[in-house]
């Protein structure tokens, strides 16, 4: 296997084949086996992706990319859209992460969904989801990227609304689709603008090259970058469009794991990381990204503080962690872009492990508790579910950023990039410094809410809801083995690839687009060694959060809050009234508008109905002519012929 493009195409094709196979199995006797295509397809794709990773990693050279343009998709005037894909270190890492995580989620799902009536449908859409995400990271053309981007959106709609008979699930699916659609509009506009600025190219590499040769006005480029970021905001659930992600908990839990860890929400981070050569030329857009990331991180962390729904805590933590990634990406304009992108993608990479782990562990809890996920109704499960308990602890510790776990290293890199940004940025030093402070506050809050959820679920007296019945037990090994694998990843993957041997950053910096971005970067590069002070502060805050959570919730059981915290908890539990605010600001006016527009619609309807009456009347008048009598028909033919013939004869002879 030496041809990287061929391998990438196979990796892309396997999930698609799995989707088709699972869809064909639906409705046949084979539908109980519909998980095998996804497990096999995705597992093979993961192995291939790891081989591809090692192949690309062992190649010499400063920048590595294999582009492949088999076919023009369509062309009209200046617009020319190719089916072009590119294999470079960035897309390789994304491919490996997506397929690897998805494989274990698939194995877990086969246990979790085992007697669900829509088994085959579930696995078909899951495979399609993985396919779309793989296509998204391989696409080297903006329009193709948008195609896969929307494919991811459709699959998330189908999976969030998997229990479509449940009104709340249907509403959540609609919300997810519509809210991300708002961002997608921005993305499309951004792509159109880039098409114009980038010399009428649609291929990413061609646009980067053109903009490198002919830098456009900064204002225009900033606009384009912000519009691109709009798409990322919608897909990656950033403020103000993050509201869909917590609601997406209505889908089956493994779907949440897939959406939060491997596919969908990482698409926005990937997009910005891929477009680093553009953002490096638009520092204003970059600092906006940092700000949005910071606001999202702290807002979501605040909301997560007091949630009682285990899955919702995890959902808000995802929003918050994505905020971290964007904070790091926002430093593209101030520090070496390669470092900023590496920090963000490294966090994406480690986050994929521990967030998939946490969600699957939450799913395992939910499975045992008879689909109850409210943490006030169960507790003290550490004896009952020892494997789930230990793996959840690994994930929670990694998410909290406790030292030496994978979350610690990646979070530290992000803090470092913000620190460097505040030291080296010419215009925005204070902005980056503020974001750094926000991120440090979020570190403490993250540790607190993660361990609050952990203690509430696994410590204190054992309580089991009545829905669980008598069969509250540890999940079967088909569910716990993925948990163990991911837990090992969550603990060791960070320390294995970055802090001592710099495998990850050395690998990633050979991405041509990042090399181009670094080339375009004019600021001071700054040295980025391991910053002991920053790491120490981060560790202190994280440990402090864990300790506070332990003091408050270590005994498990219902919350006993100091009176001073009550209003804060109340605000957090009500999610800061953001949903209510959006309802009042956007949904309600739209409803009023719809109400006002209704009479007008009625007028239009009446008009069209009036038009439809004309042929009806004509038909009514002509109906008696068809009376079924042969001779009547013959007579009318003769009369018609006579009229015609006499017309011809008299016109011609005259």
């Amino acid at each position, binding site marked *: 296997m030496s041809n990287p493009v061929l391998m990438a195409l196979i990796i892309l094709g396997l999930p698609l084949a799995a989707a088709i196979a699972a869809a064909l199995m639906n409705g046949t006797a084979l539908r109980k086996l519909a998980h095998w295509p996804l497990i096999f397809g995705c597992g093979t794709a993961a192995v291939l992706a790891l081989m591809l990773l090692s192949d690309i990693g062992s190649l010499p050279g400063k920048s590595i990319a294999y582009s492949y343009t088999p076919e023009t998709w369509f062309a009209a005037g200046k617009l020319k859209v190719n089916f072009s894909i590119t294999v470079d270190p960035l897309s390789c890492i994304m491919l490996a992460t997506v397929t690897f995580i998805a494989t274990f989620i698939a194995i877990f799902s086969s246990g979790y969904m085992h007697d669900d009536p829509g088994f085959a449908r579930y696995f078909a859409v899951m495979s399609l989801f993985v396919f779309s995400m793989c296509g998204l990271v391989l696409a080297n053309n903006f329009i193709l990227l948008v195609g896969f981007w929307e494919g991811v959106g459709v699959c998330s709609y189908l999976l969030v609304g998997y229990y479509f008979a449940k009104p709340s699930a249907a509403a959540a699916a609609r919300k997810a689709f519509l809210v991300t659609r708002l961002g997608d509009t921005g993305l499309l506009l951004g792509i159109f603008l880039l098409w114009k600025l980038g010399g009428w190219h649609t291929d990413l590499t061609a646009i980067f090259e053109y903009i490198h040769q002919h830098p456009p006005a900064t204002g225009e480029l900033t606009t384009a970058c912000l519009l691109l970021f709009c798409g990322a905001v919608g897909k990656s659930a950033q403020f103000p469009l993050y509201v869909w992600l917590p609601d997406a908990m209505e889908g089956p839990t493994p779907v949440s794991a897939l959406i939060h860890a491997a596919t969908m929400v990482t698409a926005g981070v990937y997009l910005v990381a891929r477009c680093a050569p553009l953002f490096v030329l638009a520092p204003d857009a970059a600092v906006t990204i940092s700000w949005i990331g910071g606001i999202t991180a702290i807002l979501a962390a605040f909301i997560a503080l007091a949630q009682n729904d285990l899955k919702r805590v995890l959902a808000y933590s995802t929003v918050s962690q994505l905020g971290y990634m964007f904070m790091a990406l926002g430093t593209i304009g101030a520090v070496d872009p390669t470092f900023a992108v590496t920090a963000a993608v490294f966090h994406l990479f480690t986050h994929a492990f521990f967030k998939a782990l946490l969600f699957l562990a939450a799913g395992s809890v939910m499975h045992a508790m008879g689909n109850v996920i409210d943490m006030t109704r169960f507790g003290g499960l550490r004896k009952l579910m020892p494997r789930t308990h230990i793996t959840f602890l690994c994930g929670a510790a990694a998410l909290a950023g406790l030292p030496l776990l994978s979350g610690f290293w990646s979070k530290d890199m992000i803090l470092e990039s913000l620190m460097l940004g505040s030291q080296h940025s010419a215009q925005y030093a204070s902005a980056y410094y503020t974001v750094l402070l926000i991120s440090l506050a979020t570190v403490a809050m993250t540790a607190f809410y993660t361990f609050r959820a952990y203690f509430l679920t696994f410590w204190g007296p054992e309580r089991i809801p009545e829905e669980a019945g008598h069969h509250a037990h540890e999940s079967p090994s088909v569910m716990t083995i993925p948990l163990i694998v991911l837990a090992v990843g969550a603990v060791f993957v960070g320390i294995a690839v970055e802090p001592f041997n710099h495998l990850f950053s050395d690998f990633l910096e050979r991405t041509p687009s990042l090399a181009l971005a670094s080339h375009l970067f004019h600021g001071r590069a700054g040295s980025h060694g391991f910053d002991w002070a920053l790491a120490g502060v981060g560790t202190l805050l994280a440990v402090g959060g864990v300790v506070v959570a332990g003091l408050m919730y270590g005994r498990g059981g219902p919350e006993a809050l100091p009176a001073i915290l009550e209003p804060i908890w109340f605000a957090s539990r009500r999610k800061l009234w953001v949903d209510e605010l959006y309802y009042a600001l956007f949904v309600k006016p739209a409803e009023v508008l719809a109400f006002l527009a209704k009479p007008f619609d009625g007028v239009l309807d009446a008009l069209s109905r009036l038009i439809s009456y004309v042929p009806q009347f004509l038909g009514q008048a002509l*109906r*008696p002519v*068809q*009376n*079924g*009598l*042969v*001779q*009547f028909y*013959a*007579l009318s033919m*003769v009369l018609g012929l006579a009229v015609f013939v006499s017309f011809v004869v008299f016109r011609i002879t005259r």
Partner: protein
Amino acid sequence: MITLWHYLAVAAALFGIGLVGFLTRRNLITMFLCAEMMLQGVAINLVAFARFHGNLSGQVFALFVLAVAACEAGIALALFIMLYRRGKSLDASTWQGLRELGVGPTVDDEALSPAAPEEEMPVLTPAGRKPEEEALRV
């Protein structure tokens, strides 16, 4: 001297008689014969023009008309037999079911004369010796 005009006059007369017969008579067989008559009128036209122009294409056409008319006769008579078996009548107006929904049937004002009772037909006596049953049961 018989000219083209005479032939055309005969053809037109045949065609006209057929047409009128087709439109006025309600007996299916009569109507069919009238339709045949119209066809023959046309065939005469074709042959006359073929003679007039001195080529054979009109005659070939007339032969085709004859062949088609023969087939048509076979099918039409078979159909008439089936129709008669279903409706015990050869009246074309019996069959008006294929009309638009909501349009009433067309009813004849003057009643038809009742069909004559079927006459007892003479039956041929079987000829020859009656075959023996044992011989048949081989």
